[in-house]
């Protein structure tokens, strides 16, 4: 062999190959670079959210007024509390994950099993909470009227609470005066066969207008943010005029087309970004379950290394890391 292969004379030197300058295994390093690229995807979404928000900076919904619900505490306005709880759950499951990794370093199978299990539970609680958050958001709160230009008009009245005048929202159910329905929903079985339409709004704009006329103290709130950082409230005459002239559609809740809380882009980004994050959490839970069973079966015990737990741990922490940013930019800022 020596006669056919010419040695370079660099054996044992830096460029001879076989050395590992980053001192990390292939799998771990690739997990890091996957995380890097995924982080860029998420920041692309969040930056796009920022773009749209800057574009409509004077009329963007105020998160504190949108996400006010907490399960089992019906009818109370508690902004932030539930998301803070969700954040804590996710950080907590990150902790159990890192404890599992640490136990893996000590080759302690029982502890790895326990901590992996707790991590999975934390992940499931988080995904469940997110589902609830979505359901509440889709379900809607007070309802609103959408104008011809696609803007949102909400209703409310001034009430004195503890000696202070506060603007309290009024829901469309309480406001509307039901009249005989002008039309029914077109279903597949009637008229043109196999052609249907989406469900009709609960009320017509006319019913809302009649209700507004009958309730002297109810005012309209537009989506424009004023100097004090609050949404503009119109005078009584303006309110009636806006609904009469511009009102087009009664909306309740939010979906990809309409959004009772304000500009529909807000709902689109909410579904897209928290949805994409939720999908990451879900796939993280699935991967965690697979690794959990491998741990239980003793695969890593036989392999002599729990590095696999470490790699999926990296992914799991990344999901937590992304949530920290989503939390800030969707709920805080």
């Amino acid at each position: 062999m020596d006669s056919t292969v010419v040695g370079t004379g660099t054996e044992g030197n830096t460029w001879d190959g076989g050395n590992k300058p980053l001192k990390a295994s292939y799998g771990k390093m690739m997990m890091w670079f996957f995380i890097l690229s995924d982080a860029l995807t998420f920041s692309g979404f969040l930056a796009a959210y920022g773009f749209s928000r800057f574009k409509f900076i004077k009329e963007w919904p105020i998160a504190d007024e949108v996400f006010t619900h907490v399960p089992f505490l019906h009818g109370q306005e508690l902004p932030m509390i539930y998301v803070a709880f969700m954040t804590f759950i996710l950080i907590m499951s990150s902790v159990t994950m890192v404890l599992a990794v640490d136990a893996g370093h000590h080759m302690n199978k029982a502890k790895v099993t326990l901590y992996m299990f707790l991590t999975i539970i934390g992940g499931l609680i988080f995904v469940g909470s997110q589902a609830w958050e979505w359901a509440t958001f889709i379900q809607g709160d007070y309802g609103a009227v959408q104008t011809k230009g696609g803007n949102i008009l909400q209703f409310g009245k001034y009430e004195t609470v503890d000696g202070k005048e506060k603007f309290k929202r009024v829901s469309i159910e309480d406001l509307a005066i039901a009249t005989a329905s002008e039309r029914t929903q077109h279903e597949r079985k009637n008229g043109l066969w196999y052609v249907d339409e989406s469900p009709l709004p609960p009320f017509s704009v006319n019913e809302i207008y009649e209700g507004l006329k009958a309730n002297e103290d109810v005012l309209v709130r537009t989506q424009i943010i004023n100097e004090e950082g609050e949404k503009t409230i119109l005078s009584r005459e303006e309110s009636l005029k806006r609904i009469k002239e511009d009102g087009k559609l009664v909306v309740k809740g939010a979906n990809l087309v309409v959004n009772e809380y304000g500009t529909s882009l807000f709902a689109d980004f909410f579904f897209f970004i928290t949805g994409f994050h939720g999908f990451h959490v879900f796939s993280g839970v699935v991967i965690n379950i697979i690794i959990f069973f491998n741990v239980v079966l003793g695969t890593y015990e036989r392999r002599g290394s729990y590095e696999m737990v470490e790699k999926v741990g990296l992914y799991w922490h990344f999901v937590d890391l992304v949530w920290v940013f989503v939390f800030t930019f969707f709920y805080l800022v």
Partner: protein
Amino acid sequence: MAHEHKLEIFRGLWKFKSNTQKIWGVLAFLTFVTAIEVVLGIYKPDVLMHTWMTPFEGGFFATLGNIIFSAFIYMKPLNLIFILLTIVKAYYITWDFMHMRDETKGLRRAVVWTGVFLICYLIFILLQEGGYVFGVYNGEDALIKRDF
């Protein structure tokens, strides 16, 4: 098999006896930071709701000043605090939960600098453009109508 962990955070101000203890310490810190964010988010102190500086007016140096102090001129202090606290949280999650602290300098820089550079670039471009579109929509000669 030796797994070396650096067992101190805050540049050695807070030392731990074992890796497990460090994890709980970092959890306590992250929970504390989140609690501050939530309390600020609920109460919104008035002092933090208005920018502390107004834009400089005048020639080249005013523009330069506006760029240098942009975080104080164009952002509410409350939002600035939120963003800084978020980055602090992200740092401790990456460094202590993901053990970036224990990786080699090369791996750390390859991952972190690439991300930080590209993300800063992306944010700059998109937010700059968003602000510009806002100007086009809301300028005195704007050609769009909100309701018709």
